[in-house]
């Protein structure tokens, strides 16, 4: 989080995390496509020749004023492949909130669990274990998708907000985004309130 007092801007970083091919970039592409051009910045993708994210995707959006502040959200994805673990941790630096994108296909359970543990460990190592996390169960439209209650039995999502989604069909993408924005802004507000003198 960086507060630019001159512009009265509250800069917040949200990272889409999850295993390879779970739909993180698809989420961002859809958000960018549907966002009004006057609230969104350019979508930048650092990817390989095979269209796989190698470093991150990035876009920013400014959702108008709240009170006297203009929250400016910086959305990132991480590369999902196992061997990019170091890169994922770098992108998580300074995050204010995380969306964990689960690939709901039954055959991807092990990859989801590995990525989830990876994320929890990185958040802990970066001192970010208390930032809001929202979980999106993506690819629910596919025939081989496991239902959310079943996936919850394996992935220890605790009390985090959950959303069933099909990012490619646009289902659940904006509910997820709204939830993470709500959680991040609420956390910021609570921090302010808890710091106020009695």
């Amino acid at each position: 989080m960086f507060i630019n007092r001159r512009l009265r801007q509250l800069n917040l970083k949200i990272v889409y995390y999850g295993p390879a091919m779970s739909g993180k970039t698809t989420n961002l592409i859809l958000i960018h496509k549907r966002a009004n051009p006057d609230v969104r910045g350019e979508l930048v993708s650092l990817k390989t020749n095979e269209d796989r994210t190698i470093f991150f995707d990035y876009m920013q959006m400014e959702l108008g004023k709240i009170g006297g502040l203009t929250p400016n959200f910086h959305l990132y994805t991480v590369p999902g492949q196992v061997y990019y673990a170091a890169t994922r941790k770098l992108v998580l630096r300074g995050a204010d909130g995380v969306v964990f994108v689960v690939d709901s296909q039954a055959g991807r359970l092990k990859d989801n669990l590995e990525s989830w543990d990876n994320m929890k460990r990185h958040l802990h190592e970066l001192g970010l274990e208390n930032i809001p996390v929202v979980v999106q169960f993506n690819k629910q439209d596919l025939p081989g998708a496991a239902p959310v209650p079943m996936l919850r039995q394996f992935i220890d999502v605790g009390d985090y907000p959950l959303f069933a989604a099909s990012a490619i069909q646009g289902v659940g993408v904006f509910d997820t985004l709204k939830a993470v924005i709500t959680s991040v802004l609420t956390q910021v507000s609570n921090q302010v309130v808890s710091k106020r003198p009695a």
Partner: protein
Amino acid sequence: MFDLPAGLDLSMEQLDQIDRCLDEMLWETEAHCILLADISGQLISEKGTTQGMNTAVLSALAAGELAATNELARLVGEPARFKLLLHEGERQGVYLSDVGEEMILVAVFDISTAIGMVRLYIRKIVKDLLAITQTPPPPKPSKQNHNDGLLSTDDLDDLLSTRFDAFFNGE
């Protein structure tokens, strides 16, 4: 005033001092532009000619690149971090530098500029910027509305229930 416990929160005085620092470097080195961002790539200040340049994206990429460089240093067993990174193009050069633990500096130069001089100025400005940002801001006046502009529950509700969908009504 906003009074948040985490993240980089610079006072107006500090921002003015930072701007003066960047202006001085711009003048002395004839850089095309200089950006200061936090380590997650969020822009703090920019000076010089940035028209047609997406500085938000530039600072996000620079932050990612410096973070990767520091990880490279760790992997090859370098005890200190690689603090400075130079890209040389045909017409321009880009310098990236850490500014302590929390900020990064990006300087875009004409390729004809003497590299040694740029390096010297970057070292100097890094010291100056650290001195500015590490000085605790003066105590805030104890006005009742010192948190003027705070995110209230009503404001949040208004954004999320009324205005949110309107932001995403594109194709």
